[in-house]
């Protein structure tokens, strides 16, 4: 029975979602911290642009990215002089995942940074520790719970991504097909059996992730008092 391609689809979807979550974290943590702590010109505009993918139809975001990355687009090979080679391959999938899950992570992370008292950071400075050390030793650990919740949100959002992905990376079996697009294809072609296997997998994965999130929030190490800075 055609189990092998199903496993391949699931594994690559998980790998792409993981990659996109890492990318989201690397860009999102500093941005969320800046949005939470600093005032700078254009802060509101940046905040709004970051949130856009949450309110636009995913296909619109996909089409926008496609236009940007097309050969003659602002980020295309004819403009930049180098070919980023993102369209219609796995990098396109990761990019679509990352852009669509970015706002969820940044919003959650921003709130958890805002919940850390700036006075605790000031206290750390008076003890002779620099800004970076203070961020790593005080701010980050106190915001951990929210950051982990944000990462899980971003990961699950990526797993479920469909609209932007099919436009940017297509739905090429064995190359860019994801769990979401595989279910779509199976259903469209009347392959109910395959669709059911994929659906069961999606249900199982979703359940595990939600379960882990719930467990995380009640772990003894994650007391809410930590966030209040007292």
């Amino acid at each position, binding site marked *: 029975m055609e189990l092998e391609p199903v496993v391949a689809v699931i594994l690559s979807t998980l790998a792409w979602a993981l990659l996109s979550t890492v990318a989201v974290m690397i860009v999102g943590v500093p941005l969320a911290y800046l949005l939470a702590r600093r005032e700078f010109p254009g802060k509101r505009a940046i905040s709004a642009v970051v949130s856009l993918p949450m309110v636009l139809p995913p296909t619109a975001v996909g089409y926008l990215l496609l236009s940007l990355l097309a050969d003659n687009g602002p980020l295309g090979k004819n403009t930049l002089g180098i070919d980023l080679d993102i369209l219609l391959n796995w990098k396109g999938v990761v990019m679509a995942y990352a852009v669509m899950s970015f706002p969820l992570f940044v919003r959650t992370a921003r709130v958890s940074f805002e919940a850390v*008292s700036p*006075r*605790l950071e*000031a*206290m*750390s*400075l*008076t*003890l*002779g*520790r*620099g800004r970076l050390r203070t961020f790593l030793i*005080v701010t980050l*650990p*106190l915001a951990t719970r929210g950051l982990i919740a944000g990462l899980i949100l971003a990961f699950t959002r990526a797993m479920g991504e469909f609209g932007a992905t099919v436009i940017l990376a297509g739905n090429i079996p064995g190359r860019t097909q994801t769990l979401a697009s595989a279910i779509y294809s199976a259903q469209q072609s009347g392959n109910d059996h395959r669709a059911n296997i994929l659906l069961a997998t999606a249900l199982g994965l979703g359940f595990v992730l939600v379960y882990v999130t719930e467990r995380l929030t009640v772990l003894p190490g994650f*007391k809410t*008092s*930590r966030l*209040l*800075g*007292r």
Partner: protein
Amino acid sequence: MENGLEIKLRVPLDQFVLKLEYTSAQPVIGVFGPSGCGKTTLLETVAGIRRTPSIAGAIRFGGTAWLDSERRVNLPPQQRDIGYVPQDHLLFPHISVKKNLLAGQARAARSHHDAEETFNDVVQTLHLEPLLGREVATLSGGERQRVALGRALCSGPRLLLLDEPLASLDITLRRRVLPFLLKVRDRFRIPMLIVSHDPFELQALCTEVIALRRGQMIACEPPARLFTRADIYPMAATHGFENVLPAIVTTHAAHKTSVRLGEDGSGPAVNVLPVEIEPGERLMLGFPANDILVATERFDGLSARNILPATITDVRPIDSHFIALAQLDGCALDPLAVEVTPDAVEELALRPGKPVHLLMKSSAIRAYS
């Protein structure tokens, strides 16, 4: 000036402008004023935590410019070598007490302190040993205060900044925490800047106190003189004024402890309620100004256990009554402030130079040991 503090500041606030020009090499400086007079702003500006561009002026400590707005110098807090103990303690909630205490050890090592020796010394002085493994959330108010103080001391500071160190504690806790502050002052000899709205802690700890009102310095004197000024006393006595004097324990009896007043115990003997403190050790005594009686003659058959000869040095009108300042005979201690009514002043003919007896019940004297 190795440990001199120079402040020349202008900080616009919502309601008024904090303006201060002050230079001193006193080891323990106090800042007194009602809440909202700019005390905490001053402390945070010295700490470098408050850094709004509207702050103008200069702050120098031990010859280093921490702030000099004309030369565009404004060192960040991590370069000022301070030990900051805020009113809300700001202990790090995600790490143990021990790790909190060690939070500033890197700086201590940089400034050539033996971090381990200091740590052991601080733990011993502040009795922190039993707290080391505890979580911050489980500490009581007095314990938090001690840990916050210990954390600041362990970071090898050149200047300690204390924000209302006792005011947030109730009277029993104060009695327990004050001796630790005194020990810190005498053991570590780090200059301190203490802000408080409570005259008590400033009298017990400081050698010089600045009084602030709406951001302006209205006086700057040794505490005993400052708080008995006619313009300061009403602010200092909102919850009853306490004269604070040091004393040395001499003997214990079943129902009382005898002490002699003065840093070296050379003053007159006084009986207080029993305190658990070894003979020869020092303690602070609080004499409430409205619990002292003045007599022009020595009476017999009184229940008051302390009858001390003294001489009136001044009588000052305060609102509707007076305070008489009485210098205890045979010692160089600061005069005690005694609240008296206008009638008493007239009938007893209280005036400077008048010999009197001060009568105090043992139970009215508060011992901070």
